C-alpha cells in the first residue's frame, strides 16, 4: 500500500472529522484526495502535527481529531508522545504513515526501521495497532470508532513515485477554514 491509497481510505472513512496533516507529501496527498475545510495542512514546522492535533483534541472533546503524521515527522517530536500519553485525550487518533524514509526530501532513510514506533507509543500509554494491509486498515478504522483514545495507528507503507500537487490554499485561508469549521 502506498501513502496516497491509505490516506484516501482513512480520509473518506472519517467523514467530517478534523485532520491535521504533516508537512511535505502527506499534506499534498490529503489535499488531493479529500480536501475539506477542517483539514489543517501544515506546510512548515516539521514535527508539530501531533502537537497541533493535541491542542485541537483538548478543546473539542466531542469531535474525534485525526493526526496524519510521518515517521520522519514524529521522530522530530517524540516528546509529544509523552505529553499526549500523559494527558490521555480520548478523542485523539494519531496515525503514522511509516515508509522508513524522509520521502519528501529524496527518500533518505529514517531509523524507524530499527526502532519500533508502535512500542514507543504503547509505552506512552496509547492504544496501538500496526497495519500492513488495506483489509486490516478497514477493519481497524471500524474498531476505533468504539474505543477510547489516545489511539496510535502505525501504517506500514511503501515509497512511491506518485506525486500529488501542492496545497493551493494560502496559510491564512487554511487557518480561517479550520476556525470556521470547528
Amino acid at each position, binding site marked *: 500500500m502506498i501513502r496516497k491509497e491509505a490516506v484516501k481510505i482513512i480520509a473518506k472513512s472519517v467523514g467530517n472529522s478534523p485532520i*491535521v496533516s504533516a508537512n511535505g507529501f502527506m499534506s499534498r496527498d490529503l489535499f488531493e484526495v479529500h480536501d475539506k475545510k477542517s483539514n*489543517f495542512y*501544515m*506546510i*512548515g*514546522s516539521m*514535527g*508539530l*502535527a*501531533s*502537537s*497541533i*492535533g*493535541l*491542542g*485541537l*483534541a*483538548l*478543546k*473539542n472533546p466531542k469531535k474525534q481529531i485525526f493526526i496524519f503524521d510521518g515517521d520522519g515527522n514524529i521522530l522530530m*517530536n517524540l*516528546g*509529544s508522545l*509523552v*505529553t499526549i500519553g500523559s*494527558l490521555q485525550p480520548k478523542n485523539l487518533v494519531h496515525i503514522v504513515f511509516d515508509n522508513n524514509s524522509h520521502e519528501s526530501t529524496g527518500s533518505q532513510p529514517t531509523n524507524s526501521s530499527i526502532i519500533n514506533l508502535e512500542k514507543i507509543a504503547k509505552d506512552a500509554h496509547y492504544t496501538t495497532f500496526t497495519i500492513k494491509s488495506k483489509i486490516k486498515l478497514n477493519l481497524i478504522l471500524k474498531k476505533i470508532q468504539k474505543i477510547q483514545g489516545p489511539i496510535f495507528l502505525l501504517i506500514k507503507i511503501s515509497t512511491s513515485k506518485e506525486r500529488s500537487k501542492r496545497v493551493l490554499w494560502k*496559510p*491564512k485561508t*487554511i*487557518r480561517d477554514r*479550520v*476556525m470556521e469549521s*470547528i
Partner: protein
Amino acid sequence: MNEKIQRELFHYLNKNKIKNFIGVPDSTLKHFIDECIKNKNIIITTREEEALGIATGTTLSKSPTLVFMQNAGFANSISTITSLVQLYEIPIILLIGWRGYLPDDAPEHIKIGKIQPELLKIIGLKSKIITENNWKQNSDWALKQIKEKKPCALIVRRMFHD
C-alpha cells in the same frame, strides 16, 4: 519582576480571557508558572516548539493561549515561529524570560541574551518588555494584538543572580 506581580499577571491575563498556559519552565518566570500550576491551568511540554504547536491547536479552537519559555527556548523556536505562528498568523502571546540581560549572567546565556532584542526585531515579532510598573498596560497591548489576530511577545528581564 517580583513574586506578587508575577502571580497577579496570571490572574489578570486569565480574567481577560487567556484560557490556556503552555510552555517550558524558566526560573525568571517561576512565580508566574507556579500560579498556573496552583490554578491547575498549565501544560508543561518537552520543548518550546511543542508548546507552540499545542497553542496553535487551542487557538484554532478559539481558545486564547499564552506560551511561556526562556529565551534559550525562543531561539529553539525561531523556525516554528516563522513557518507556523507568523505564516498562518496564529494569535498567540509568548511570555519570554530574558536570560543574559545582565552582562554577568551565566556564560551559556550571554550570547543569546545579547542578541535577543535583535532576534525579535529581525523576525518581525512585535514585543514589549514588562516591568513591575508597566505590566498591566503592556498586557493590555498584548491582549489587543491577539484580538487583531497578531502574535506578539512579552519579555521579562532577569534582574538577579542565583
